[in-house]
């Protein structure tokens, strides 16, 4: 526990020093982007703690951006008011999507979020009078909080990373108390959790709304930071990108969110720079091949993310060195969600999810 606090403090100090030490402005900009993605990823990981995955995060990210941008640009409201409004609107949207779908099996929920993601993106492109269509919205006001104007990269850096830390600590607290235990119990076995009095649907709803709010916060910050938005950063492709960050960090590992966002963003920069050299002909989203294969490999070999995977590996090595012949750990299959009550003689596969 105190080790974690120490790590947090060290990281905070290091990050606070970056702008002063950064060799180029590029580093600060890159870290700003990483920070925004980290907030979205943290939301996804909170959701992952309850055994859910959403492919609509980019839509919530975008809704947050567009709402705050439009209210502040066209109505002249201060961003200090429009950002909370944007979060409220997105929370409401997530609630409306969640009510009917969260009680369905997990793949239907994924599908519903995917549908929402696509619909929202289509609306961004099509509602030209409101959103400016594909060419986007310009001249979004910068941030002016009471007393301070936040305009430069460096100022945004401090704001974004403060919020990263706040969202990180909130998420960590949630997952380490009663609520978090209930969420992880739902991940382990919905039936088992319900049998102990955990209101499964209600918890899933809470965490889904919260994850959407996280995404919206990042989106609203993005809008006032870049001061220009268009539909393309909020497409399905972006949702997949966020999912990869969460998966790399470990879908249930809060700290992994930071790592996943950083690793994938940097990897993306490298791929964008290097791949065209190897395949000069190729344009467009060639990175998908790499990300797709990465996703499959991680899910097969490190389903709890790179960090946990490495830790597990070390634990296994240490243990096999300490004890001559350990019983293979985890010989038992982990419980799958919704294992049907064993007596039901006609359990359809639909009930069992993937539990073959």
């Amino acid at each position, binding site marked *: 526990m105190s080790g974690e606090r120490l790590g947090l403090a060290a990281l905070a100090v290091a990050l606070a020093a970056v702008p002063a030490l950064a060799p180029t402005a590029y580093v600060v900009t890159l870290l700003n982007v990483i920070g925004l993605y980290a907030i979205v990823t943290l939301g996804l990981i909170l959701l*992952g703690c309850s*055994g859910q*995955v959403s492919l609509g995060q980019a839509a919530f990210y975008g809704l947050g951006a567009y709402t705050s941008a439009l209210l502040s640009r066209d109505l002249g409201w201060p961003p200090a008011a429009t950002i909370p409004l944007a979060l409220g609107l997105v929370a409401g949207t997530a609630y409306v999507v969640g009510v*009917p*779908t969260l*009680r*369905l*099996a*997990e793949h*239907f929920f*994924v*599908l*519903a979020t995917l*549908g929402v993601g*696509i*619909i929202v993106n*289509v*609306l961004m*492109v099509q509602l030209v009078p409101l959103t400016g269509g594909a060419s986007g919205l310009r001249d979004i006001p910068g941030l002016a909080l009471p007393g301070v104007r936040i305009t430069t990269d460096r100022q945004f850096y401090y704001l974004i990373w403060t919020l990263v830390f706040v969202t990180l600590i909130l998420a960590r607290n949630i997952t380490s108390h009663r609520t978090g235990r209930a969420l992880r119990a739902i991940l382990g076995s*919905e*039936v088992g959790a*319900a049998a102990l009095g955990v209101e*499964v*649907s209600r918890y899933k709803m809470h965490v889904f709304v919260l994850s959407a709010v996280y995404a919206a916060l990042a989106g609203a910050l993005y809008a006032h930071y870049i001061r220009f938005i268009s539909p393309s950063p909020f497409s*399905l492709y972006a949702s997949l990108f966020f*999912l990869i960050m969460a*998966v790399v960090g470990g*879908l249930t590992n809060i700290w992994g969110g930071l790592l996943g966002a950083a690793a994938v963003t940097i990897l993306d920069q490298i791929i964008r720079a290097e791949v065209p050299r190897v395949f000069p*002909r*190729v344009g467009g*989203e*060639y*990175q*998908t*091949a790499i*990300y*797709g*294969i990465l*996703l*499959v490999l991680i*899910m*097969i070999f490190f*389903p709890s993310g790179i960090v946990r995977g490495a830790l597990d590996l070390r634990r296994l090595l240490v243990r096999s060195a300490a004890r001559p012949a350990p019983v293979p750990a985890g010989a038992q*299959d*982990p419980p*799958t*969600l*919704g294992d*049907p*009550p064993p007596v*039901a003689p006609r*359990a*359809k*596969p*639909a*009930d069992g*999810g*993937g*539990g*073959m």
Partner: protein
Amino acid sequence: MLALLPQLVLTGLTVGSIYALVALGFVVIYNVTGILNFAQGEFPMLGALLCASLLAGGLSVPLAAVAAVAAVCVLGALVERLAVEPAYGSHPLTLIIITFGVSMAFRGLALMVWGADPYTLPEFTPGAPLVLLSGVLTRQAVWAIGLSLAVVAALFLFFACTVPGAAVRACADNPFASRLVGISPRRTSLFAFTLSAGLGAVAGIVIAPITGATYDMGLGLGLKGFVAAVIGGLTNAPAAVVGGYLVGLIEALATGFLTPGYSGAITFLVLLLVLFLQREGLLHGAQRRRA
């Protein structure tokens, strides 16, 4: 406006027959393994592009088509063995994400192999289009509708009348019991992926002469096939076929009567509606309540 209707219906039926094939692929895999294969849409893409390459290599249309379908079947089997099978028994979420990964990988690889430009396939039987109730039906559209119906019929015969078909059905009904009588769920799962890949490839090859084929066609086809399968209840093959035609019609009508840009959203609006209306049957045992 109304004069457009017959044409839109014909277009809807043509595209719908393709969605029906993709939806069938979903249903086959879902019934046998409980997995929703989000990579299903990539099989039509691979079928169409492979067929185009084989044609360019000098093969005749029928030969290229059959070879492409066979190759995609092999790819389907590989997906099952390399990506899905190693993760059996883990959380359903893991499997969902894996199939997403497979889908992205295929799309990216196809982009590297075939580039971003669209390919076209020749019509199977070139000739003047048919005119039906003031709507135009190309010969290829007749092929699409006819072939998809034929495949559906063949599939039903297979499941109803053959021993391997019965084994797959048994496995879908009760994997545990079928293992007791010597049916291997692992082999059935491999078979399901192979068959679904083949179904997808057929769909892609049939539709390519009409719509062209690009590396990124899989996403839309997959999602719409998916919606069709969900409309049909996911476990019911005939209903999924009907769902496919329905999605095709809705899409065609939306394109005709609304701004074309919205047609992509309409399908998903329908999907959300269907999901909202789903009740018994899709629920987890845990959450099943009294009606």
